[in-house]
Structure formats: structure tokens, C-alpha cells
């Protein structure tokens, strides 16, 4: 740093020989450093807001179903189509997986109207994929839309898709510590489904431990223990879906749950 004026040493210094002083070639500060406040996820958030607005306009409810691979997300959709279709609005499904049409074929066989989104190397769905997916799916107004996200407990948490509700799903076979290990996802959902309750007696799984972890991460979240195999918990699942389809769209930050960032307060 120059001791004369305090300017940065990496600016050009012009020294006049045979003189005891030097002068600076100061570039205008604004041309050296550009100060911005650009949210990096702004594009996704804008698209998500467009999706949300479009869905709301057509009276649709949209659920982003996220969870571990193998938690039973597709099995839940199959069972919902088979058991609860008469109690619910028309169901349409966007299936997200890196590869294959397996899940789309399964829910189609169960009577679902479905479009498969293959993300290739992508680890999550984003608002643009949902926008395109919804155009292809063309659900009828008033539909209940499920987005089955890529089985992954990390990346999907960050990307708003324009959904009205978020669900995190795990199974008793996943172990007790999933909420603590993947807090971002579990703290951003309204409902946490613990599937494969029928296997509870065969694996080391302590429901109290998991419920306690969830209560600390996301005190407002509901926890639903169910089994897609035996339909344990399906009465509560039907009630939750009925409430979800009857409640209007929440604001764009709803999925951040209790620990949501206040939109009105500035960043520090």
C-alpha cells in the first residue's frame, strides 16, 4: 500500500526520476471493481415463481416428493393412485430420475397420467425442467400434481420448483440418523413420511430418535409413519392430501418451514 495516499500497491506507480516524489496513475475505482448483489439462484427462483403462478391460476396443487432412493416414493404414488384416486382430484405425475422410464411405467400401470423427466447426469430437478415437464404433461385444471424428485437427500433441497407443498420421505430401513445427516432437506418440508413401517420389527430403527431429531430441525413438520405395503397410515395420508388440495397456495418461501429466512429482513 502506498504510504502517501493509502491506495492499493497493485495500482500502477509512475516514478519521476531525479525527483523526490512520485505520482500515481489512478484508474477510476468503479472500472476496477464492480459491486453487485446478484442472487445466483435468481433465474431458477423466477421460473419457479412462474410455475407456481401458472399452477395456482388453474387451481392445481403441486407436491414435491423428495427422499432417499428406495424410500418407496414410487410405491407411495402407486398405492395412492390405487387406493385414494376416488377421494382426490385427478392425479398427474412428473417422474424425475437420471435414467430409465421404470417409474413412469409403474405409475402408468397404476392408472397415473405421467411424464418422465430424465436428468442424465443431473442430480436434481429444477424449475426449468418442471416448466417443460408441465407443458408436456398438460394436466387438467384442478389436478393434484406429484413431482417425484430424483432420489437424493442433498441437492433437491436447494431448488424451488414452484410447488405448493414439500414432502421428505425415508424408510425405516434407512436408519435413525438420516434427518441429522441431511438437515437441509428435512428442515424444508411440511411433512416427513417414514415408510416401510411393516419392517420396523426387523431392523434397528428407533422412531423416537428420529422424531426427536425432526422436532429439533423442523418443529412445525408433521411426521407420518406408514407402509405402502400394508396401507398402515393411509387414513392420515388421505387426510393430509385432502387438506393440501383444499388449502390455497402458500408463498414462495413456505417450504423453508419454521426455520425460513425472513424475506423482509436484509442480509447481514
Amino acid at each position: 500500500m502506498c504510504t502517501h495516499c493509502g491506495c492499493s500497491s497493485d495500482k500502477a506507480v509512475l516514478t519521476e526520476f531525479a525527483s523526490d516524489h512520485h505520482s500515481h496513475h489512478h484508474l477510476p475505482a468503479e472500472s476496477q471493481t464492480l459491486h453487485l448483489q446478484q442472487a445466483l439462484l435468481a433465474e431458477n427462483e423466477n421460473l419457479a415463481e412462474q410455475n407456481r403462478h401458472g399452477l395456482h391460476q388453474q387451481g392445481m396443487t403441486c407436491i414435491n416428493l423428495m427422499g432417499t432412493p428406495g424410500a418407496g416414493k414410487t410405491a407411495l404414488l402407486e398405492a395412492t393412485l390405487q387406493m385414494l384416486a376416488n377421494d382426490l382430484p385427478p392425479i398427474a405425475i412428473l417422474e424425475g430420475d437420471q435414467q430409465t422410464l421404470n417409474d413412469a411405467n409403474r405409475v402408468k400401470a397404476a392408472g397415473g397420467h405421467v411424464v418422465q423427466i430424465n436428468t442424465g447426469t443431473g442430480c436434481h430437478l429444477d424449475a426449468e425442467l418442471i416448466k417443460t415437464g408441465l407443458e408436456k404433461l398438460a394436466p387438467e385444471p384442478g389436478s393434484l400434481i406429484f413431482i417425484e424428485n430424483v432420489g437424493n437427500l442433498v441437492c433437491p433441497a436447494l431448488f424451488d420448483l414452484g410447488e405448493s407443498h414439500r414432502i421428505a420421505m425415508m424408510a425405516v430401513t434407512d436408519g435413525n440418523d438420516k434427518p441429522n445427516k441431511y438437515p437441509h432437506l428435512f428442515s424444508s418440508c411440511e411433512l416427513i413420511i417414514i415408510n416401510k413401517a411393516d419392517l420396523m420389527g426387523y431392523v434397528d430403527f428407533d422412531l423416537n430418535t428420529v422424531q426427536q431429531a425432526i422436532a429439533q430441525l423442523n418443529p412445525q413438520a408433521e411426521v407420518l409413519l406408514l407402509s405402502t405395503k400394508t396401507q398402515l397410515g393411509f387414513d392420515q395420508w388421505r387426510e393430509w392430501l385432502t387438506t393440501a388440495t383444499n388449502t390455497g397456495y402458500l408463498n414462495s418461501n413456505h417450504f423453508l418451514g419454521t426455520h425460513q429466512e425472513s424475506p423482509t429482513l436484509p442480509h447481514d
Partner: protein
Amino acid sequence: MHELSIINALLKYIQPYLNRKIKCIKIEVGSMSCIDPERLIGCFDWVKATAGLSDTQLIIDHHPAKASCQQCHQDFSLTQLGQPCPCGSYDYTLLSGQQLTLTEIEFA
């Protein structure tokens, strides 16, 4: 690998300034943003040459999260999700810490 999606978003915002040599790019990452800063730099290093940013450094400005407790009504720093307020309550609202923001482009 959602960090690569973040870097791709960053490159879009940098695009209009590529006519000048960029010395460093500064981004602000909140500690509750679900982003691994080291992986973010790793992803930037992978793509910087093809993006015309071989000599550009990505600087990450870490921001700790702040929360407001609904029980004792005090603000406190949060280092990880699921951490209680010093009063013991888990019922709090995040005030900051989820930001992912491009804040500075310094030209060479």
C-alpha cells in the same frame, strides 16, 4: 453435485463482462445455503478455462447464519441446522445465512 449448477448460473451473470480481463470474482455464501464452498471452488476450477476465466480467482465470502428465537426473542448465530438457541429452544426463524450472491467482479 448442485454446486456445478451454481457455477453455471454464475457464468451466465459473468458473461457480459468477459470482454475485460477478470482478476477475481467474489461471491457470498451463507452457512445455511446447502453449498459446500470447497466443492464450489472445485467446480469453478473445472470450467474456468473453457469459460475464458483461466486467470480468474473465485473468492468465497462466508457468512454465518443468524436466527431469531421465538421463545426468548434474542438473535443468535447458528453454525448448523438443528442447533438450539442458547436458551434451549429449537423454535426460531432464520434471519440470514441462506444467501448465494455474486457481490464483486474485480478487473485486472
